[in-house]
Structures are given as C-alpha cells and as structure tokens.
C-alpha cells in the first residue's frame, strides 16, 4: 500500500480511537456528579467535553509514544500501529456495550503488543516492562484511590454529620463540580496527548516530520476535538454503571471520589508514574461507596469490572494480532480490516439500541433500561 494512504488510514483510525477513548472515559469525571444531581447529564458531558479540549492544549510535552518500554519501537510500522488501534477500538466498543469501565490506554497497549507479536515476533515485546508499566499499576491504582476515597468519605460524613443538611449537600455538590472539572482537564491533557503522540510518531515514521518534531497544530486540534466530541457523546452505559450500579452515591461520596481521583491522577502524572484514569476513578467510587458502609457497595459489579480489567490486555492483543495478520497481506487486507471494524462498530451500536441508555434514563436503574442486569 502506498505509504501516504496507510498514513491517512492510521491517522483516521487514531482519531476514531481518540473518540472512543473520550466516550469510554466520560464516566471517570462525571458519573458521580450526574448520579447525585450535582450536574444535569447533558451539562456534565458538555463541561467534560470542553475541558477535555482545553486539556489537550495545556501541555506541550508530547507523550513520546505509548509503546515506550513495552515493545521494540524500531519494529513498529504504520501497519502495526493501525492494527493496534483497531484492537483497542474493538475492545473499547465491546466494554462500552457491556457498560464496563476498562482502561483505554491498556487496550491500546494490548492492541500494539498483539500486532507487534504478529509483525515482528514475541521477542519484540518487552514483557518485563509490561509488569512494571501495566500490570502492577493496574492492581495498585484502584487500591490506592479506593483507600483514599474510603477514608475521605468516612471523615466527610463524620465531620458534617450534624451540620445543616441543605448547606452540606449544596457544598459537596459544588465540590463535585470542581473535582469533575479537574479530572476532565487532566484526562484531556493525558489521553489526547497519547493520540497526538501516535499520529506524530506515524508522521515521523513516514518521513513527513523530522525525528524530534513535536505535533503539528492540526494534530493537536484534531486530537483535542476527537476526544472532546467523544466525551460529549457521553458513554452513558458506563456512566450508569459507575454512578448508579456500584452504590447509591451521595454528594459527600461523589466529592470524596472525585477528589481522590484528582489527587492520584495529578500526583502520579507529575511524578512520572502514570496510572489509568479509569482504574483510579473506578477504585475511588468503590472506596467512596465503602466509606459509607461496605454493605452499600454492589460487589458483584466489582467482580465484573475486575474481569474486564484482566481481559483488557489479552483481548485487545488478540484483536490487534488478527488485524495485523490480515493487514500484513497488503492493501486489500487493510481494507478488509477497516470494513470489518466499521461493520463491528455498527453491529455493536445496533445491539446497544436494544437497551438504550441515554441522558434521559442514565439515573434510572429501576426502569426499563434495567432489563439487562449486569449483576445477573
């Protein structure tokens, strides 16, 4: 395939991944704010979308590449990147359909690993880096965030137990809006940068940019817009899971969860130990739920989320590997992968219409939207 054609395909696929990343991760910032009524659903995703866009412009430090330290970068070609992105998109869509919060970054890493294995062999994958960069943080991030949220929630209830109800509820709702905004901003900075990094790397690989180039302005704008639009689209199914199914979240819990998420994400990013926003936010919400009483948390949801996290890497790797295998056959193979991806996305969207979750029923866990019970 002509190098310029595959570059265009990679860029479009990267932006598509960025879009799925946005709507998959909307819940991280706004699920609890919507659940407690601190923000109306549409307002919440609008604010989150705008702040994701702003976040994309905040930092000039481009994520070198998400694959750094995980695969032999000398063996990464545009086709491998394309296949990895396809694997990540498929996993993001499947988990969205099931309403399960899973890490988009881990899906991308899994997709790239699978594609690299097929294209360059398993030797090109640095499995030691996988443990330190992915598996260990995946275990520790939700625990740390959950513990912080648990303690914060307990203290919030204890301190305000006899304060005026109206003042406390209003105050925590305002706090929720601030913390949700911070998470959205941080998400735009971190995750939009990943897509910028991928597109920039692809352009460098193709010789369209010098080796040490930063992202062109159009890359920053398009990446920011893609993640912002995805965020505004609102991953309502995941928002419903985190906001309504984990526990009946109250304002103090929502504020504690948001603050915990913000603290962990900002600290870890600043110290160069990036953690998955999704896993941090999910851990925070479970911790905040437990802070009001362990029994108030639906632990069956936690089990489902844990299974999704365990499957993210191998499943995305499998999709990425198959995509790389087909795409490696040539231009026709790449076209086949694109067509199958579009078909799968359409099928998943059609399946989602059978149990629609929208801004209008996202907080309605007892209504018709509950016909498929995740906990069942």
């Amino acid at each position: 395939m002509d190098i310029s054609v595959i570059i265009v395909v990679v860029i479009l696929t990267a932006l598509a991944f960025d879009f799925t990343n946005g709507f998959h991760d909307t819940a991280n910032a706004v699920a609890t704010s919507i659940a407690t009524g601190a923000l109306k659903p549409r307002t919440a995703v609008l604010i989150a979308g705008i702040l994701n866009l702003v976040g994309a412009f905040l930092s000039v430090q481009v994520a070198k590449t998400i694959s750094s330290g995980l695969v032999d970068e000398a063996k990464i070609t545009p086709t491998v990147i394309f296949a990895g992105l396809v694997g990540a998109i498929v996993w993001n869509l499947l988990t969205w359909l099931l309403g399960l919060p899973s890490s988009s970054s881990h899906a991308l890493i899994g997709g790239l690993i699978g594609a690299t294995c097929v294209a360059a062999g398993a030797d090109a994958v640095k499995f030691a880096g996988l443990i330190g960069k992915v598996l260990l943080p995946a275990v520790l991030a939700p625990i740390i965030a959950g513990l912080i949220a648990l303690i914060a929630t307990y203290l919030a209830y204890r301190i305000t137990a006899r304060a005026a109800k109206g003042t406390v509820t209003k105050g925590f709702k305002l706090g929720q809006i601030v913390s949700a905004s911070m998470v959205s901003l941080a998400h735009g900075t971190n995750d939009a940068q990943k897509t910028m990094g991928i597109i920039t790397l692809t352009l460098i690989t193709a010789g369209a940019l010098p080796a040490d180039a930063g992202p062109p302005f159009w890359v920053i704008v398009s990446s920011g817009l893609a993640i912002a639009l995805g965020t505004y689209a609102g991953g309502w199914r995941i928002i419903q899971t985190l906001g309504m199914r984990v526990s009946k979240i109250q304002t103090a819990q929502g504020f504690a969860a948001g603050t915990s998420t913000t603290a962990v994400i900002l600290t870890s990013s600043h110290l160069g130990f990036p953690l998955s926003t999704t896993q941090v936010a999910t851990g925070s919400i479970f911790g905040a739920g437990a802070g009001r009483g362990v029994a108030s948390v639906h632990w069956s949801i936690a089990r489902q989320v844990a299974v999704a996290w365990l499957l993210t890497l191998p499943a995305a790797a499998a999709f990425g590997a198959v995509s790389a295998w087909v795409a490696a056959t040539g231009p026709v193979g790449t076209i086949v992968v694109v067509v199958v991806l579009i078909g799968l996305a359409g099928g998943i969207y059609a399946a989602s219409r059978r149990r629609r979750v929208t801004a209008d029923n996202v907080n309605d866990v007892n209504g018709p939207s509950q016909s498929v019970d995740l906990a069942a």
Partner: protein
Amino acid sequence: MTINWASLGIVAAFSLVVGVLVVVLVSLALVGLSAREPDPAGEPADEALVIGRGSGGLSRAGGTAVAAVCLLGAAAIVSYGLYLLVV
C-alpha cells in the same frame, strides 16, 4: 524488570494526604457555613448514616471565619493542582 517503588510510594502518600486534606477542609468549611443557618443542628446531609458528631457552638462570625480559612486552604491546593496540570 524495574519497578520504581519510591515513586509509587510517594504517589500513594502524597495523594492520600492531599486528597483527604481537601475533603476534610471542605467538610469543615461546610460545618462553619452551617453555623450561619438559623438552625445549625439540622438533619444530616442527604439520608446518610449518622456516623459521628458534627459541629456545635460556633457563632455566625466564628463559623464564617472557619469556613473562609478552610475554603482558602482547599482553593490553594486546587490551584496547585491546576499549576501541576499546566506546567
């Protein structure tokens, strides 16, 4: 395999201190603001479990002062968080 345990430990400790501190400061501010209400000994927020004792005995001025100090502290921490994001 290299795991930067020191960074991880700092992330955990710093996040714990900052995250809990912000929530505590805002909670105390709300207790202070409650003193401005006609009936500060109202019902607990939401329909939450009452798991402890809250404020009492704060005058309106005292409550306002506590709220202002605590909110300033929380705002300073949030501003630092924004600074970390931008820089």
